[in-house]
């Protein structure tokens, strides 16, 4: 059993072979991601054939990001051909001198208007005539498209016309994406956009998976989705849009698997990298959101709610014309990179960390990359002159300001969703996360930080333990919702879910169904998702009060959508234990670190040498291959049995 992540520069593998846990890492092969997968599998399994592989793929993500998707023909109601371009008719930048929006994925010449009209209640106002079907099939055939997307108004209420088009197009043997099958929910633009993206990435995904399956032989292959569940390759080929944010999602799931064993099941992931930082909320399960905008395009399939801010280690610091310190969104990236990388001149967060003594120059990437502390000093000194303060204060200032950006990002996923961050642990990883975690936690009132072991493998780990599953939804618009009636309406979803999961190898008895409802006060437009149980109306009032500060128990409620989460439990996996500490951890060196307002000599520990159960009081610096951690004086570190560091406020 193997979990694989092809996310970034490296392809990571985690395998359980005969009860033994193995890990492996090798450079990715972006031109053909399958190559690294095959290569990695050979190494990790010692040449033995793979039995079951689950992996998170970036094929769909990259097709969209690099605009290298298929030529898609779009079939929509006549008169609405441009909906894909109009979107919600708004702009993203309010104060840009000239507004811009992303290029539509289907050019005007490939949009085909179809006669006939379905209404909101499912009635068909104008049927789709056979002659019209023949006409559009001919147009579709001539379009030279590799994939078709079909999205008609109100198809969620009655899919007859969409199905008729699908049947008419089937003989053309192209990839076919039909809106009500992908997403049976109202709000035409978001459904349309999701369907088009699916069509746009499908041919690349199909070719990739076929290639991979050929190489894997008899192994059972599954693909991670953006919602944290795995699906079989048949579904992944039909609905690749569901995999678009699968890498980061797998990371959150992996984080959950890793620390659940330690009794931590409410945490905030804080993944601070070079150019951006991802945060997400894990409240016994990953939080799901239904709308996201990868590369600026609307996708309305469930994804793990990961909030990204454009600030990280490479963010450039400067003083603006009004005398405020700005950190980001400009980034020095990997090239030229922070001043201390030896090429650029701009002061960055990483330079500030180095000047503040939070980063150990000799240990950067395990000593494999040389840093130039003198260059960081010069860059920060220049910034300090602009700020009219000392270099130490400038470095601290950069850290404070970038942390304020992070704090705001975390408030978006906690406070703005009705959660108090103080009830959560902060799980920090990424190159810069562990350096900033303590001060960020103090700002947010968080009392516990977890630094997971092998953070680079979280995504592969998440793939390894991912349950098989899929989400289903339908718009019901029940204005006088009654539990029995809602359950009856959900029956087709349940039947479909059981059939699909069983077909992918799930044992019927192992399938868990979680039926939920999107509820709002009648007249509102934003719904809150609650479990569809006997007290769901009451649960909704409570959730509304928690999230928005008030409830209206006398106001009528409306159930807009039903959602079914169907999953067949993943393998139970346990991380490998590390040896118990035999003695008090010994520092490997000492260094000068800015602690609070002053410089202090602080001990440096090697993470690998800290045994299970060992404790260290801050201030201290902990170094490991991929990152450096700063333990501030307010925290005490304790290593758990699996090598995860727990930092607790004293």
């Amino acid at each position, binding site marked *: 059993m193997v979990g694989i992540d092809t996310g970034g520069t490296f392809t990571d593998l985690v395998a359980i072979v005969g009860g033994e846990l193995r890990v492996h890492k090798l450079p990715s092969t972006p031109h053909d991601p399958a190559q690294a997968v095959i290569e990695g599998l050979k190494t990790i399994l010692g040449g033995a054939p793979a039995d079951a592989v689950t992996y998170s793929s970036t094929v769909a993500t990259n097709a969209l990001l690099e605009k290298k998707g298929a030529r898609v023909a779009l079939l929509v109601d006549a*008169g*609405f*051909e*441009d*909906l894909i*371009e*109009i979107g*919600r*008719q*708004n*702009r993203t930048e*309010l*104060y840009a*001198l*000239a*507004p*811009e*929006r992303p290029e539509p994925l289907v050019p005007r010449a490939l949009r085909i208007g179809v006669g006939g009209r379905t*209404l*909101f209640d499912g009635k068909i*106002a104008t049927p789709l005539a056979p002659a019209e079907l023949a006409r559009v099939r001919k147009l579709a055939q001539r379009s030279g498209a590799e994939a078709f997307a079909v999205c008609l*108004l*109100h198809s*969620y209420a009655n899919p007859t016309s969409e199905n008729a088009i699908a049947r008419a197009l089937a003989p053309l043997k192209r990839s076919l994406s039909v809106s009500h099958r992908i997403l049976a929910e*109202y*709000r*035409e*633009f978001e459904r349309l956009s999701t369907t088009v993206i699916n069509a746009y990435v499908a041919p690349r995904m199909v070719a990739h998976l076929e290639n991979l399956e050929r190489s894997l032989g008899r192994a059972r292959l599954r693909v991670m989705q953006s919602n944290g569940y795995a699906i079989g390759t048949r579904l992944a080929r039909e609905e690749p849009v569901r995999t678009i944010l699968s890498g980061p999602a797998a990371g959150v799931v992996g984080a959950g698997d890793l620390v659940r064993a330690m009794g931590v099941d409410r945490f905030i992931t804080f993944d601070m990298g070079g150019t951006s930082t991802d945060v997400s909320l894990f409240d016994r399960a990953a939080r799901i959101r239904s709308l996201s905008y990868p590369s600026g395009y609307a996708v309305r399939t469930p994804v793990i709610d990961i909030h990204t801010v454009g600030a990280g280690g490479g963010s450039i610091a400067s*003083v*603006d*014309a*009004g*005398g*405020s*310190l700005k950190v980001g969104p400009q980034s020095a990236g990997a090239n030229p990179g922070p001043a201390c990388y030896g090429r650029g001149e701009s002061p960055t967060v990483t330079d500030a960390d180095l000047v503040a003594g939070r980063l150990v120059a000799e240990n950067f990437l395990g000593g494999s990359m040389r840093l130039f502390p003198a260059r960081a000093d010069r860059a920060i000194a220049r910034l300090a002159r602009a*700020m009219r*303060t000392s270099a130490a204060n400038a470095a601290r*200032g950069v850290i*404070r*300001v970038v942390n*304020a*950006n992070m*704090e*705001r990002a975390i*408030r978006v996923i906690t*406070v*703005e969703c009705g959660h108090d961050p103080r009830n959560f642990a902060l799980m920090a990883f990424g190159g810069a996360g562990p350096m900033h975690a303590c001060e960020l936690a103090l700002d947010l009132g968080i009392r516990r930080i977890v630094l997971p072991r092998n953070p680079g493998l979280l995504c592969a780990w998440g793939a390894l333990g991912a349950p098989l599953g899929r989400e289903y939804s339908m718009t019901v*618009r029940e204005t006088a919702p009654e539990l029995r009636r809602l359950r009856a309406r959900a029956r087709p979803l349940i039947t479909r879910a059981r059939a699909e999961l069983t077909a992918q190898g799930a044992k019927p008895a192992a399938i868990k169904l979680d039926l939920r409802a999107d509820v709002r*006060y009648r*007249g*509102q*437009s*934003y719904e809150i998702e609650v479990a569809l149980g006997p007290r769901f109306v009451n649960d909704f009032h409570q959730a*509304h009060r928690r*999230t*928005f*500060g*008030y409830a*209206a128990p006398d*106001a009528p409620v409306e159930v807009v959508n039903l959602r079914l989460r169907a999953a067949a439990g993943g393998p139970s996996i346990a991380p490998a234990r590390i040896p118990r500490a035999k003695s008090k951890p010994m520092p490997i060196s000492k260094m000068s670190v800015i602690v609070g307002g002053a410089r202090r000599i602080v001990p440096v520990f090697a993470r690998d040498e800290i045994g299970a159960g060992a404790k260290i009081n801050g201030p201290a610096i902990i170094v490991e291959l991929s990152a450096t951690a700063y333990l501030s004086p307010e925290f005490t570190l304790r290593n758990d049995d699996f090598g995860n560091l727990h930092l607790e406020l004293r």
Partner: protein
Amino acid sequence: MKLDPVTLAVMNNRMAAIAEEMGVVLGQTGFSPNIKERRDFSCALFDGRGELVAQAAHIPVHLGSTPLSVRAVIERLELAPGDVAIVNDPFAGGTHLPDVTLVAPIFLDGERRPFAYAADRAHHADIGGMAPGSMALATEIYQEGFRLPPVKLMVAGKPARDVFELFFANTRVRDEREGDLRAQLAALRVGADRLLGLVAAVGRAEVAAAMEALKDYADRLMRATLKKIPPGVYRAADAMDDDGFDRGPIPIRVAIEVRGGHATVDFTGTAPQVRGSINANYAITLSATFYVMKCLAAEAVPANEGLMRPIKLIAPPATIVNALPPAAVAGGNVETSQRIVDVLFRALAQAAPERIAAASSGSMSNLTVGGYDTFRARHFSYYETIAGGAGAAPGHPGASGIHTHMTNTLNTPIEALEAYYPMRVTEYRMRRGSGGRGKFAGGDGLVRELECLVKSNVSLLTERRLIAPWGLAGGGDGAVGENYVVRRNGQREKLPGKTNLGLAPGDRIRIETPGGGAWGRTRK
């Protein structure tokens, strides 16, 4: 007042986050489509003097004008803890009647004067008056709807029931109004809670100092922007088509004098106020100027009072850029505001030709449909604005079918509109060829056609139906917009830019919005 660069950045972040969080609550709990689907609202924080400190702007037209509401409230009412004021009177701090502003004082323990204020403004879908949607062709404000000078909506934490009842009795869709007000109140509570939390965390003196410092910061950024503009006087004129009653054009003239980090924006020479509703009150003109100046600044200037300090605004009273009672003003907010932006950019194009874009569609193409919904047995009132083409900028063509300048409201999904109102959308697409031609083409406008399923009243408040959005640097003008009614029998009649009319079931209203102007001559 000057804070160190770090504290300034951190406090700027925190204040903006509070205003944004208020916006999340209001947007997600509002009831009328204007708020929930179109996000026609804004939330803001003010200091103890009523000066704007932070605003989450979803809609630029609210920027700069909300402070006048707060000041009107402070002048007229003595607010105690737990009080909330309501105001929509355009001549006492409001903009147009559908924009209802709520203001709550924020008290610190043991203090007798408010430490700060939270305010939010939302466009309500109906506020009474002669036609559903309160955007009809009126000649005086009394016809436009229910007018609320600053009064207390909440007293010591308890609803002032009589004020609520008076309000509801004067609007058409009571439930919706009630839900929207509840959402506005909830957002104010969040604003107050968060600001009190910040005071508890960093201290009263620090927050008070930060409020001052943030205004000074915006002031400095704005002055730095103005210093980059060559000193001089830049003049421009543009015009409104008409006011819906008398013939136009109705000119708006401006002279912008820029010197040493300051600017005087003088609208002397602009037409006197008119009979129809396109009169902008002072708040609107201030907002439009605020918006243009914020666009001009290269850096993200925080939206607060300091931004306007280096700018002196002269808007002669009793003109269409500073209307006096009892002028009708519904269209000043949505239409004249766009023309004020056009004329300001036209003047600035002489000062900074390498940055300024040609005119965008210049109209929000406001459409209001109301009546009695026989299918659902209730009254309805539906309002929407329809996007147009954006003007081309030096270096790139204008975007098509997009909201520009003073508005940024979302469209109502067709599948929501048809499910809740007795209407059917029969066409919604780009209006090909409507963008101006040139080196960089103007964006295309939209075509939107709606069929009424019941007997309905329709109000149109549209502009740029006679005078086209201008091109720049030799680029062609965008096409003017056109409005039609298509009767059930297929007969098509052209409608004026501003009109009220009755539709029978099966009749369709068809709006073709203006394109944007082009930039630069096409090389032959």
